[in-house]
């Protein structure tokens, strides 16, 4: 259990100050495309605080990729905190090639009406309208994901325009902070999806941690330079330096396949995990789901992780791909920056 300098409400005050700046710019006839972000109404839906709060209740948990109702039910019984509905698991996306798009809304709807935990779904990077469709469908969170084929090679979706929160991938602190500035409510390290190999997720998490540490020890002057290098506001860097972590929830993803992988990513400071192909590309999804959930939430207890690791069998773990054997054009993590 980690204690930070600032409470959730204090972090949100910062985001609200940004919202106020935007609102006053709007009063001057600028930034006309943005909605009101800070509401004085008695009851308000879809505000920054409501969107940032949703991932807090995912912390310590495991979000599982599923492709149909049966897998979603296995995930819920296994203790998943949410499911992510896809057309194909990342491993198959990699194998089949072609253009990968959002999942069939009919399948997402079926999943939503058969389980009680939140349902997320992926959209292509920059595909504003796939996201609008999922918002209309009432999914709980949208993943703007590099696993699908990007629809916009230059821009990401302006996520401030949505009532539904977004999660985005990041390989470095700069990517994470750019996504937060675009309105993401949650970050996940990218890793290299669909490989069953955790090494890239470890690399990204360690890089972000080391960038956070160096930011905290930097002079104001250098931090100002960093803000320009990262293409984000200086105030956001100040907040991050003070907090010593990302100001929103940060999960690990990409290549997690066993309970020990899960515990490793939690030990490195992840708030929780996304497990993609690791569960339903194994031969023992029911027990593996449960074992990974146990290891993720009780990672400080090696004896519990041992018990979880004993529940599964290495023979049944997905085969995995050595990332060095992938040609550069097959890497999914470099599709956006």
């Amino acid at each position, binding site marked *: *259990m980690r204690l930070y300098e600032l*409470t959730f409400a204090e972090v949100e005050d910062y985001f609200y100050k940004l919202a106020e700046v935007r609102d006053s710019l709007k009063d001057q006839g600028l930034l006309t495309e943005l909605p009101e972000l800070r509401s004085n109404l008695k009851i308000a839906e879809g*505000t920054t*605080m*409501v969107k940032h709060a949703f991932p807090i*209740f995912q912390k310590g*948990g495991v979000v599982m990729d599923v492709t149909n109702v049966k897998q979603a039910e296995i995930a819920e019984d296994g203790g998943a905190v949410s499911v992510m509905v896809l057309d194909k698991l990342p491993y198959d996306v990699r194998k089949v090639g072609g253009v990968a798009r959002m999942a069939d809304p009919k399948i997402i709807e079926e999943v939503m009406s058969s389980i009680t935990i939140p349902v997320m779904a992926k959209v292509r990077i920059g595909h504003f309208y796939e996201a609008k469709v999922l918002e209309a469908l009432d999914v709980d969170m949208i993943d703007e994901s590099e696993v699908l084929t990007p629809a916009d090679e230059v821009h990401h979706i302006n996520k401030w325009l949505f009532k539904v929160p977004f999660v985005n991938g990041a390989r470095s602190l700069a990517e994470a902070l750019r996504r937060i500035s675009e309105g993401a409510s949650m970050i996940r390290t990218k890793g290299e999806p669909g490989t069953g190999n955790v090494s890239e997720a470890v690399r990204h998490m360690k890089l972000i941690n080391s960038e956070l540490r160096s930011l905290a020890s930097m002079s104001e002057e250098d931090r100002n330079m960093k803000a320009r290098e990262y293409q984000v506001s200086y105030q956001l860097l100040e907040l991050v330096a003070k907090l010593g972590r990302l100001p929103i929830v940060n999960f690990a993803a990409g290549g997690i396949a066993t309970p020990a992988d899960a515990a490793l990513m939690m030990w490195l400071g992840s708030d929780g995990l996304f497990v993609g192909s690791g569960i339903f590309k194994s031969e023992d999804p029911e027990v593996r789901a449960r074992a990974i959930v146990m290891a993720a939430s009780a990672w400080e207890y090696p004896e*519990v992780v041992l018990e979880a690791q004993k529940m599964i069998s290495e023979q049944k773990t997905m085969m995995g791909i050595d990332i060095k054997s992938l040609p550069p054009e097959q890497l999914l993590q470099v599709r956006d920056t």
Partner: protein
Amino acid sequence: MKIGILAYQGSFEEHALQTKRAMGTGDIVPVKTPKDMGQLDGIIIPGGESTTIGMLASKLGIIDEIREQILSGLPVLGTCAGAIFLAKEASDSKVKKQQELLKVMDIAAVRNYYGRQRESFEAEVDLSEIGEEKARVVFIRSPAITKVWGNSKSLSKLNGVTIMAQEGGMIATTFHPELSNTLAVHKYFLSLVKK
């Protein structure tokens, strides 16, 4: 004073920080296995996914220990999923589902009462029963307390629906005091612990 926080999943870190600010000196410990349950003066069950928390609590063999200690008087604060966990009656607004729950408090909770995340909201709530006029709080895929009976009483309502209830040393809220600027709920809970 030693307060335990059921720390599998959800807003456990936020509760820890808020409790620390509300209590000044004292210990806050994460609770995950039965041996963490020794000599607690109070326990907090955070928000999260009640199916996940229930599965882990029963798998790691702690659910009976918590129930016994609460029944023999250990004060408890349950927020959102924590409130569902305490309720004697719990159901989902749409899907029928068997869950591992404590079933200790005379309230009925309906999961996802207001709808999905898009229907989640922030609102100003009235905390005058516990000594604070108003506070702005969030409700995330929140349940509702639809019935209060026996020794339970409703402490606050929003548009006619109970959002906070108490029965002796047990407090349930459907909103999230741990994500708000007010320490009132945590201070009120700690005042029950001291008695």
